């Protein structure tokens, strides 16, 4: 429900052909060697992004490594404690350790985002590839369907689906995934069409390639780079949207630790316990920023 998708939708299109128009001489210069170049090309921002993602994935897989507190059962008389050595991020109104809830919440948020991206990626990309390679009427029909999906604002569409499927984190994730089908389909189609128009695909047909072989050997590998980059971007977007649905109360039911829900619960103690809302929000921002940064690096990395 932020601009992530807008960016994805409108920008991934014209990113491909940025050539060294300004100074061919400059591009030529970069013929140096070896590992030294690799070391120099490491970007600290990207390393940090991967680090954040790795930590969050570990939180999701092995929360017990990081905290010994129970995320759902509070400790009596420890309510609304400010951050301290004992509770690094403080406690909530039921005396539950906030850090423990954030760490245990990673699993819910991350798996929800993966389900959402999985739905969009599988269904959307398939539709896009079919449309782009079949062309003609099938293409027209699929893309009109995509237009219709795009015409309904994503949050409203996901709310409609949530009503249909019922509340809960998996349903919310599926709903979010369905709303991203259209973007994936559009991107995949435009990539397939772009690659199909290239000389090397024509050359592959010209050297006797059958449609299936050319599709597998050239069209898919060359189209999917952008789709993968977009999927990483969508991962961040899905985390955000799922947390929004959680905040609105359509995701995980309490007392499940889920990042959006954590913020919603902390809202009642704004005056007394700032950490309850602020910290989970910062965690969400860091994770989403990291996903975006990683997505960017996919987009640029070409073999």
């Amino acid at each position, binding site marked *: *429900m*932020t*601009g*992530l*998708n*807008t*960016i994805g*939708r*409108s*920008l991934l299109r*014209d990113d491909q052909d940025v050539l060294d*128009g*300004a100074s061919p001489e400059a591009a030529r210069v970069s013929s140096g060697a070896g590992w030294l170049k690799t070391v120099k090309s490491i970007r600290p921002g990207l390393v940090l992004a991967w680090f954040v993602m790795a930590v969050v994935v570990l939180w999701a897989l092995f929360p017990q490594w990081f905290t010994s507190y129970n995320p759902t059962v509070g400790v009596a008389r420890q309510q609304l404690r400010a951050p301290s050595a004992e509770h690094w991020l403080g406690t909530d109104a039921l005396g539950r350790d906030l850090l423990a809830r954030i760490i245990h919440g990673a699993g819910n948020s991350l798996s929800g985002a993966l389900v959402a991206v999985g739905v969009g990626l599988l269904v959307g990309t398939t539709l896009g590839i079919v449309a782009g390679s079949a062309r003609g009427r099938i293409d027209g029909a699929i893309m*009109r*369907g995509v*237009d*219709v*999906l*795009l*015409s*309904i*604002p*994503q*949050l*409203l*569409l996901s*709310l*409609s*689906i*949530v*009503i*249909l499927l019922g509340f809960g984190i998996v349903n919310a994730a599926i709903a979010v995934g369905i709303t991203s089908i259209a973007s994936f389909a559009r991107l995949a189609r435009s990539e397939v069409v772009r690659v199909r128009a290239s000389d090397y695909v024509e050359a592959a047909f010209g050297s006797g390639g059958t449609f299936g072989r050319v599709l597998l050997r050239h069209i898919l590998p060359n189209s999917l780079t952008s789709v993968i980059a977009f999927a990483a971007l969508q991962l*961040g977007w899905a985390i*955000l949207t799922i*947390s*929004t649905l959680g*905040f*609105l*109360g*359509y995701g995980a039911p309490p007392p499940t630790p889920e990042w*959006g829900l954590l*913020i*919603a619960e*902390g*809202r009642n103690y*704004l*005056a007394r316990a*700032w950490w309850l*809302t*602020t910290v*989970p*929000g910062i965690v*969400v*921002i860091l994770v*989403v*920023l990291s996903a*975006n940064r990683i997505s960017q690096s996919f987009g640029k990395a070409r073999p």
Partner: protein
Amino acid sequence: MSRYVIGRIGQAALVLWAAFTVSFILLQALPGDAILIKFLNPELGLGPEQIADIRAAYAADSPLPVQYLHTVANFLTGNFGYSIHAGVPVGDLILANLPQTLWLASLGFLLSVVVAVALAALSALAPFSWLRAFIQSIPALFISTPVFWLGILLIQIFSFQLRLIPVINPGPWQALVLPVLTLAVPISAPLAQILMRNIDHVLTEPFVAVARAKGASHRWVLWKHVAKNAVLPTLTIGGILFGELLAGAVVTEAVFGLNGLGGLTQRSVNDQDVAVLQAIVVFSAGAFVLINLTVDLLYPVFDPRLRVKQGAVA
């Protein structure tokens, strides 16, 4: 009217009809009669006659295709059905909640345009590359921020810490300041990013070098050549931005407890009030389609390349 215009309008109508159908299938067809049973809820205080009216209005006793056609006809005549929760016509509910959201959305949109243009202009004029890199990274941060969290943070800072805006009974303008700010941030980010990218792209165009070779300064080039070429393509995301704006309004109104279309949406989901939600979905799809139609039809006015050549000699 040219054939293109008629075709484009027809296409828009088709998309709108399909969006209606999708929302009908999603919301009304599947749960079926179960929804109408809710009208029997004594708390609504509806008499048997009123319930019979509502049933007739939905053609609830007819088979699904008839119900569908009935709903289409109702929508076309401006009858959007009845709220299950409130028992009043949906049209009245939307009309009552629309003004608040319109204010919020238009002010939020204006502010987001101002922020986006300011960021883009600052990055284009930045004298150092590190400063430009810094300005260009701001939208990424905006985009990654959950809107609801931002709203809460603003309340915390401005209402609780600084005590600039009272939490209870703020004035009509005071009540809008934080929501507008909250809404503007996520909308400004994609706008700013697209503007920045377009500016960077246009600056590499050979015609910019030609302008510099004429003796034009960097500022002259930005203003006379880059601005229009960079702004034009952003028009095409108008429809998508509208969707973002509406989604942002839903969340913002939820955070600030405002009554508007967003609040109505949230309540309709909570109450499973599908008639209301469907009307809102169709309403926003209609607005989306209309915005895109307008952009498409107006684009040639701004971009001479899309104008039909009038007897131009090659």
